[in-house]
């Protein structure tokens, strides 16, 4: 299975250019920033914005889950009241 995966990667990007090509894609997506110093080129992860977004998503997921728990209880109460009304009629 591993060799099949390596074959697939090989086909997509020949080994010599694969790393620089991947870095270019990551740089274009603003996931890394790159700087040059002499013959070395440094890449930095740019993950701070992701943290803020992940916190926001977590907060809303909790908000929805707490609301939907209350919605369950509300819908049960509304239907119980309806059944009671029908019985009394």
């Amino acid at each position: 299975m591993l060799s099949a995966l390596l074959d697939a990667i090989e086909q997509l990007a020949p080994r010599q250019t694969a790393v620089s090509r991947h870095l270019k894609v990551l740089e274009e997506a603003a996931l890394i920033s790159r700087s040059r110093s002499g013959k070395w080129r440094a890449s930095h992860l740019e993950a701070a914005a992701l943290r803020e977004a992940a916190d926001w998503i977590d907060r809303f997921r909790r908000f929805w889950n707490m609301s939907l728990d209350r919605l369950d209880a509300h819908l049960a109460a509304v239907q119980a009241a309806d059944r009671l009304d029908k019985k009394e009629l």
Partner: protein
Amino acid sequence: MYPDEPQLAISRVVDAPRGLAFRAFTDPDQLAMWWGPSGNTLPRDEIEFDVRPGGFQRWTEVVAARPDLRVHIHIDLTDVADGDLLEGVMHVTGRLQDDIEPFETRFRVEFHDEPDGRTRLEIRQWLPAHLTGPSTQGWLEALDKLDATLLHIQAVAADAEV
């Protein structure tokens, strides 16, 4: 303004028919009974709904334990199909918890029939624009691709084991 893919997806089945579930979102008296965590209250005289495409939903949220907070919600409804769909942009302003700045977020709630008279809610929400810089969007897309790749690898590995 918003990327196509929502960043938050919640699927939930409630034990009520579709029409009733829809009314829980669109009838002011009903929404006030369940919206937000417990302790959250919606003063009735500050709820105003005009539920139709191009209409709105407005309310204020107050928390008894935190009288300093007062959250104003104003939803511009972009799409409404009775019993089926609510979609809009929610503007959140006022004094928010944790020093959160006012923001706006696109959302969509679909109501689907389930067996035994139950309803499946499909809730989708989009990150506010200020959190969707190229870096965030790039990461979220990369993580989605990673998920897909890992699932594919697991499937290939499961096949190889047979």
